[in-house]
């Protein structure tokens, strides 16, 4: 059984209406020489068997009772209502709102999402989403180059996630632009910073932002959404473009995706912003409604000169983020951020057997240098059902003993005590 409802009777009637005798006649525009002779695809199996298969595959992945893995993707608590609402089929089986009259659910939720992001970041315009945090870096760089048309240099601050840095290289391989690592805004289209940095360190980039603007350079700030419950915002720092990976806002870890690319900017740059944007308007009866706007920037109209090639985005994930932020609200986001921060500080205080590598304050993620190679420690603790964190040596930064640990509101004091004790016993054995 498949999902095709057409019976043989239906088929007969339809072929008759079309005016052909056999199904094969409908494929007569395909030359014989290129018709498929055979392919090696397994037989279909029942839904029941598929479920069993996939269950078995799912079971071959190890889930840990306690995890301190971060590196840009965090295990925050996702309230039940996020799933319940985003799994309504009127949302997840709808498509791009090309006919706004029957897509006000989609369009209003995009408008609300855009609003939530602006309020979160103190920026003026947000788009309806990009793919995820790494392609967001590329889109921000491309946007800066469009705004600063006379320049072709992008500066990447050392705080940047190393994977995003690599992705930037891959996406720009064929463009005539120079990418340098550092913080000197001279002659650059933009400087891209990340706060918190990949290693968890916090910094105030307001001063750098001023230097950038004096040099005619844009400031791009890549942020961590949950941290903005506490941390100084990209808008407050003078960012021209703010970008982020939005996975922490109610989106499952899901082994790499789907995630959420966030991009926000200032009014003066909005026409160079990639992606879809919803705007408010009225109908003839004066009823408020929402439409996709500024579409003339996009690929389906502008083609080669489009601001981006983006078509499908991550709309359903943006809805999840909106619902999450609405459930947490003003107080809730602050509370989650405070818990993350305090719990991380508490854990730090218990790791006296190692050295905290970060010289700057951190939010919820930090690096501890252990007296034993971090990869070994991770392996040993995995046997206890604990995912201890990211061995930084894999990133070719830091010591072999460097372990990057992320703490979220999910970790109880007991969890942290237990983890600290195990870490100590394994590292110092």
């Amino acid at each position, binding site marked *: 059984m498949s999902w095709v409802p057409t019976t043989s009777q239906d088929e007969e009637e339809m072929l008759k209406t079309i005016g052909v005798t056999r199904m094969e006649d409908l494929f007569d525009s395909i030359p014989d020489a290129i018709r498929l002779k055979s392919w090696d695809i397994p037989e279909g199996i029942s839904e029941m068997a598929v479920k069993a298969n996939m269950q078995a595959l799912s079971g071959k992945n190890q889930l840990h009772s306690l995890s301190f893995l971060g590196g840009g993707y965090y295990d925050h608590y996702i309230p039940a209502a996020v799933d319940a609402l985003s799994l309504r089929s009127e949302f997840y089986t709808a498509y791009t709102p090309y006919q706004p009259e029957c897509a006000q659910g989609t369009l209003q939720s995009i408008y609300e999402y855009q609003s939530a992001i602006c309020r979160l970041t103190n920026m003026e315009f947000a788009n309806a989403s990009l793919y995820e945090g790494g392609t967001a870096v590329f889109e921000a760089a491309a946007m800066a180059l469009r705004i600063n048309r006379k320049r072709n240099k992008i500066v990447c601050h050392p705080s940047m996630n190393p994977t995003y840095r690599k992705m930037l290289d891959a996406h720009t391989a064929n463009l005539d632009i120079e990418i340098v690592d550092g913080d000197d805004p001279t002659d650059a289209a933009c400087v891209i910073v990340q706060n918190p940095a990949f290693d968890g360190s916090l910094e105030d980039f307001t001063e750098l932002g001023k230097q950038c603007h004096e040099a005619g350079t844009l400031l791009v700030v890549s942020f961590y959404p949950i941290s903005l419950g506490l941390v100084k915002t990209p808008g407050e720092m003078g960012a021209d473009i703010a970008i982020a990976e939005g996975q922490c806002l109610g989106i499952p870890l899901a082994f790499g995706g789907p995630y959420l690319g966030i991009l926000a900017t200032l009014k003066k740059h909005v*026409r160079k912003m990639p992606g879809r944007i919803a705007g408010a308007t009225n109908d003839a009866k004066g009823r408020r409604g929402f439409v996709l*706007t*500024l*579409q*003339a*920037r996009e690929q389906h*109209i*502008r083609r080669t*000169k489009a601001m981006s090639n983006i078509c499908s985005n991550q709309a359903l994930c943006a809805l999840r983020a909106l619902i999450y932020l609405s459930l947490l609200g003003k107080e809730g986001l602050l509370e989650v951020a405070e818990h993350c921060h305090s719990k991380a500080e508490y854990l730090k205080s218990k790791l006296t057997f190692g050295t905290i590598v970060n010289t700057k304050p951190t939010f919820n993620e930090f690096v501890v240098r252990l007296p034993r190679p971090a990869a070994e420690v991770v392996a040993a603790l995995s046997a206890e059902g604990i995912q201890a964190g990211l061995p930084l040596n894999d990133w070719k930064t830091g010591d072999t003993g460097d372990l990057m640990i992320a703490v979220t509101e999910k970790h109880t004091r007991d969890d942290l005590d237990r983890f600290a004790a195990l870490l100590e016993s394994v590292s110092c054995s």
Partner: protein
Amino acid sequence: MFPENLKYTVEHEWVAVNGDTCTVGITAFAAEQLGDITYVELPETGLAGSQGDDAATVESVKAASDVYLPIGGTVFEINEALEEKPELVNESPFDDGWFFKLENVTSSDLDSLMDADAYAAFVKEQDH
């Protein structure tokens, strides 16, 4: 049908010659094709270029079009009114809806442009 005193390009720009300087805009035909114009991006004063170089962009809800330099020259004045009221281009394409003015023009470039009759014929061909 189209003002007699203007010259026209195949990209639907018009040029008015005022002694040493020229005024440039887009034609009623172009404006009509675009629909209600929502935004005009004008060049910066001081922009110098040759015939055919990118000069401006004009956007409507359904399209975005590039406006090119119809003749070589340097932009010395732009119609800032279009910032607040882009609809001037639809309302008065040959007059209040002008885009920018050029000086130091390459006069010989004018020879390659169409007159009103030729442009009318050109538009007729486009429209079917």
